[in-house]
């Protein structure tokens, strides 16, 4: 921490240096250890779009919530998705109204769930970035091999590099550097993020999840800034390689193809989602049940300025929805959903 402060002093200005931690787990570590506050004089950590359930668009959730209320349907989801609100409440609230929702810890748990509930259509609401997508790919491959007829997947998976590209190419704002998600990078490989430096001129460090990893990554970013260097470094070599996890990438490529996806508060981003390929159409809940995302009433998405908040172009209160239409109980944008989000902590 002393080193971070002394590196900070080598940079111009007096304000804390804005750094974006992209990943939700890094946000969690910063909050849990109190580092965010402890280093507040030197660094301003800004939570990025990296909480995989927070970025799920309310319209996708509404679709899921309505679907879960149908007869003979069992929705399986990762725990933290259950609490994320759509415009018509969260899955947890719908559960109290009779929706059948089952919490799973791993994608492969869904196989067992489908076998135990033969008379139900089991739909897995698959969320997460590159970290959880390979698990979903495996689930679909296994379900196909086992010939399961009552299992399908609603892919809400998102890809990190396209989102960062979109976010940063609209102007970098005040962000001095990025702390990149270690788990996502373990799958994609460090090289997948090279474009940040080479095309967008943004320095970044791949970091692990121990508090020391985050401190180390912060120091590296400040060091690069002080030296005027711009690169994508890897500070999580014990897990992240240059190329990533080839087996996981192959499984994903077999089952999924990139498609446009809706991000809460950020809107539609080209090639940032994972659609299920036609060869596995039988396991695609969208096709099987003709699921269409609903439209958010009031067009909240058009006015939410999450993207600018994330880039540091505006402060949360400058968004017209902040504190009125957008509150922690009724979040319009990703920055308000997670307790570590920029808007939620400002609230």
């Amino acid at each position: 921490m002393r080193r971070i402060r002394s590196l900070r002093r080598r940079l111009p200005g007096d304000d804390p240096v804005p750094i974006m931690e992209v990943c939700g787990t890094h946000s969690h570590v910063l909050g849990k250890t109190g580092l965010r506050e402890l280093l507040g004089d030197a660094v301003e950590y800004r939570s990025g779009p990296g909480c995989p359930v927070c970025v799920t668009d309310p319209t996708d959730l509404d679709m899921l919530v309505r679907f879960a209320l149908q007869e003979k349907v069992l929705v399986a989801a990762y725990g933290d998705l259950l609490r994320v609100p759509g415009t018509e409440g969260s899955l947890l609230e719908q559960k109290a109204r009779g929706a059948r929702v089952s919490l799973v810890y791993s994608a492969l748990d869904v196989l067992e769930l489908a076998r135990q509930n033969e008379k139900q259509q089991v739909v897995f609401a698959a969320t997460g970035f590159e970290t959880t997508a390979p698990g979903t790919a495996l689930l679909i491959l296994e379900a196909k091999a086992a010939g399961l007829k009552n299992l399908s997947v609603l892919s809400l998976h998102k890809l990190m590099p396209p989102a960062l590209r979109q976010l940063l190419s609209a102007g970098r704002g005040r962000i001095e550097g990025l702390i990149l998600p270690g788990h996502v990078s373990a799958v994609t490989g460090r090289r997948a993020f090279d474009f940040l430096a080479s095309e967008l001129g943004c320095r970044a460090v791949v970091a692990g999840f121990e508090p020391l990893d985050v401190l180390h990554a912060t120091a590296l970013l400040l060091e690069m800034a002080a030296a005027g260097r711009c690169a994508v470094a890897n500070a999580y070599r014990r897990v992240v390689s240059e190329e990533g996890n080839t087996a996981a990438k192959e499984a994903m490529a077999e089952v999924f193809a990139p498609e446009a996806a809706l991000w809460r508060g950020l809107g539609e981003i080209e090639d940032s989602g994972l659609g299920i390929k036609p060869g596995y159409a039988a396991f695609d809940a969208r096709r099987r049940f003709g699921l269409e995302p609903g439209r958010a009433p009031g067009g909240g998405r058009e006015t939410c300025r999450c993207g600018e908040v994330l880039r540091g172009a505006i402060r949360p209160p400058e968004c017209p929805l902040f504190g009125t239409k957008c509150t922690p109980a009724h979040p319009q944008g990703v920055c308000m959903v997670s307790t570590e989000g920029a808007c939620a902590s400002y609230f």
Partner: protein
Amino acid sequence: MELVQLGHGDGGALTRELITRVFEPHLGNPMLGRQEDAALFSLPGGKVALTTDSFVVKPLFFPGGDIGKLAVCGTANDLAVMGARPLYLTAGFIIEEGLPLEELEQVALSMARAAAAAGVKIVAADTKVAERGAVDRLFINTSGIGQREAEISLGAEMVRPGDSVIVSGPVGNHGMVILASRMGINPGNGLLSDCACLWPLICEIIEDFPIRFMRDATRGGLATVLKELAVAAGLDLVVEEEKIPLCREVRELAEMLGVDPLYLACEGRFIAVVPPEAASAVVERLHRFEEGRGAAIIGRLQEGSGRLLLRTSFGGTRVLDFLRGQHIPRIC
């Protein structure tokens, strides 16, 4: 395998059979044996404590305990932390049709063991059988009466700035055991629920030390109980993260599942507030007991506005609030 039928709850011959076969052998005592409409007893003078609690734990049986042990300890502990010796309990059983009699008998047996450990008698009981699907296997309600023997004053209003906060042992074991069982994870290495009767520990410290406040850390875990105390006392409570006793298994599983162990339920732990000069003597006394072996001073109260502040091992400060909603593992 014999199963509980609806007829076991109709008050007729089958009900009698259930009582004589399952409950009487384990829970029987002269007062219960009279099978009258109410238990009749007299109490010596002094303050009487009365409490009630219902138990709907799933699964019914878990490493370190079951719903029966929980139902006795839970109610007896609520009396104990009020400084009252637990004396008599009532037990109401709501049983789902189809529950194996053998399981009911196991529950009765562990209630008997827990009652003996707490020094209470079950003096009135009731059974009802509900149709399949109307109850999840077995629900138990227990009410309890206890009595304060010593002239003591306990309560949040007694707490002063500077007072020390003690926890009686490692926290979160019960909550983690239940969470792991529900998720089909084997917690391994003999991680057991902390479910236990606290009166033997409490009666040991209550007369010898100036205890100002006690509460058992059940649902909502340690953090919620501490927050309740801070709010009720109108003081800030500062807790040192490193001082909080946690089993390695609980720490690691919590990390893996993305839950905060400070919010996991305990069923055999309490917090006590004492003047700072008495704190280490209280902890030493608690260490003499198996259930109190992990007791530690974890923080202190200071002037403030009801905040719960956690000093992290990095020297940072986290503001903790009440538990919100259920425990839900994070994927991110």
